[in-house]
């Protein structure tokens, strides 16, 4: 009887764990609730691999990039190079993850170096662009 009780307790615990896991899934991402429903009738979007969405975003961003860059006036092509350089240092996001979130060690070191490098770029890039753009003036009349 004792063993049975033990077995029952374990089952209970296991059940609770599973329930928790499912709840986790259902709560953390707002979409997971949909996902559960979706598995049944393949139509809802909840169950789609995020890679597809990212890819869609990537492709549309290329279109936007294409149009937005062609609309830049040739007189500002040098600032354009400077500013694209500055914004490409948004990989600082990766550097911050490596420095801040990981236990001290090699990764922190790499992250720190990356952070220093892109910081040069962030500050240098935007400031030099600003300096250039400040020089473009209209004719005073």
């Amino acid at each position, binding site marked *: 009887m004792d063993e049975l009780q033990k077995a029952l307790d374990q089952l209970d615990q296991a059940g609770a764990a599973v329930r928790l896991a499912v709840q986790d899934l259902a709560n953390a991402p707002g979409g997971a609730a949909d996902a559960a429903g979706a598995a049944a009738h393949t139509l809802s979007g909840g169950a789609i691999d995020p890679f597809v969405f990212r890819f869609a975003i990537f492709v549309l961003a290329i279109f936007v990039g294409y149009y937005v860059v062609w609309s830049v006036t040739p007189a500002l*092509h040098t600032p354009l190079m400077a500013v694209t350089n500055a914004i490409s240092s948004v990989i600082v996001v990766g550097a911050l993850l*490596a420095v801040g979130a990981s236990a001290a060690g090699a990764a922190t070191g790499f992250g720190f170096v990356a952070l220093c490098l892109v910081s040069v770029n962030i500050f240098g890039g935007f400031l030099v662009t*600003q300096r250039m753009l400040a020089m473009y003036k209209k004719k005073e009349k």
Partner: protein
Amino acid sequence: MNVNLASFLYLVSGILFILALRGLSHPTTSRQGNLYGMIGMAIAILTTLALALPSAGGFGLIVLGLAIGGGVGAFIARRIAMTAMPQLIAAFHSLVGLAAVMVAAGAIYAPESFGIGEAGAIHAQALVEMSLGVAIGAITFTGSVIAFLKLDGRMSGKPIMLPARHLINLALGAALVVLIVLLVGTESKFIFWLIVAASLVLGVLLIVPIGGADMPVVISMLNSYSGWAAAALGFTLGNLALIITGALVGSSGAILSYIMCKGMNRSFISVILGGFGGETASAGADDGIERTVKQGSADDAAYLMMNAQKVIIVPGYGMAVAQAQHALREMADKLKANGVEVKYAIHPVAGRMPGHMNVLLAEANVPYDEVFELEDINSEFAQADVAYVIGANDVTNPSARDDKSSPIYGMPILEVDKARTCLFVKRSLGSGYAGIDNTLFYKDGTMMLLGDAKKMTEEIVKAMDH
């Protein structure tokens, strides 16, 4: 912070970067655009900090890193001369490339912090995306360093042609593919560093055979690469800001390369294969026809321009070398004070980077509405009394228009030969970047003003006061 909120904020920062580029469609909106860019960057940084709250020590390191890098960056941005822009941009590129390598290294050494799996069990997809990112980043790094050295004159601009270089590059490329496959299989850090090393070497080998004057195309190409590298890392990290920015930067670099190649009427492939430009001996004109050159003095030039109704100024690379933009502006002011109409004509590939001349003129306070693009002003040369060509050469060479056998045939040119008189300021009768003799020097309406662009212009200004 909630991941959904964070993703939304990353989207906002991506949109702000789009608006930053959009602002550049006109000088008046450009400053606001740059501000959007800064805000976007701030949002991306703060979101990341809020999402993965660092420990106190980590936070200290982050502040330190931002301070060091930011200080250096701000210092450079303040001090750099406008004429050194091409080098500066190459140098900045190299930093992004190296940082991409470092971030990827961080991800390999601490995959948990990046949410791409556990050490020893990193998702295969993430490994592929990351190794693409790291290879492109490393190529960008060494490639940009070489470009920087060539542009800054610390390395000869002459193309360095290794024997069998195409074979070596192909072999290296194949080795990279094999290494990436091995990395996905083994997740070995040693192989990771082998990939880095191979890519670094490849970056050098790809760029050394390209002549110094082709560096602008190379820089744009590397810019485009760094964009794709960022996008690849963005897929790994599932970060919308990185994906959007990567796509923007990637397209921007590609389009600028395209514009430059079209402006030079060359194919992108021929630029990348290298061997063009550098210190090619100026061919000279060996067609047996005797050629005479009319040479003039600063006084002659001053007299001609003061009595003109309309003067069009055509700046080129020589103006940047001589830093003659301020003297030029002074000269234009004198002319305008005397009732002469003055306009500036800019060829799309004048100088050594797109928009190079525009920045320099803006630096010298030339209002941007006096500065015109090729299509908008080319028809006006016929009504101009004087075309003042200062340090430009190839972009005026009529053989691009008339001589089908010329290597630059088909490249659009500024038709300075249509002006009544054409004043040419340069130091010699030597050729420009393309190494092609300019038949304009020997034309009737042309007067050569041999000398340094800045000195000559200053002398003309002085002569105007007499």
